[in-house]
């Protein structure tokens, strides 16, 4: 069984557009600049979406890792507003 470790996954998505979902209903969509072992994340050109509604835009944003639920590559932009 070939497994794909979390660090392999992260190597592939750094510098790419991602969605960071928090445990609250907040989502951040942006370019993944970097992250650390606590899952603290910094995004560039980030958009803040709350319950499918666009709220804010940030050139850079730091997200504290304890609030992160998951990180996923952003395939299609803003699926929600279709």
């Amino acid at each position: 069984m070939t497994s794909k470790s979390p660090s392999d996954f992260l190597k592939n998505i750094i510098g790419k557009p991602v969605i960071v979902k928090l445990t609250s209903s907040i989502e951040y969509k942006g370019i993944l600049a970097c992250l650390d072992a606590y899952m603290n994340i910094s995004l560039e050109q980030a958009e803040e979406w709350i319950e499918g509604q666009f709220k804010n835009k940030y050139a850079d944003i730091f997200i504290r890792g304890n609030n992160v639920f998951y990180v996923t590559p952003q395939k299609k932009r803003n699926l929600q507003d279709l």
Partner: protein
Amino acid sequence: MDFVLPFEIVDKCLGSRIWIKAQKQREVVGTLCGFDADLNMVLSDVIEYQYKIDGSIEKTHLDEILLNGGQITFLVPFKNGPDEVLNKQINQSNISNDVNLEIEKEKSNSD
């Protein structure tokens, strides 16, 4: 040795469906692709279930995610999530009803 370490169970799940219950009424089901010592997991072909206040369930499909291990409360190996279990429960309740019917039939026959 006849005991199993928790991580062995997770390791056995590699390549299989896994159902994860996370904090704040969130559940995800996906194929486990990998994990680390903090139980951060790479999952593919994921369905995320969100239980809303009004009782509705929002399902989201995601190709691949990195799940924060710190948010996991428990996980069910080799299960395809709430849908599978619900279906099974319905089937099982049908079976038990059938059995009850059989017993009642037998009773009425003997009477």
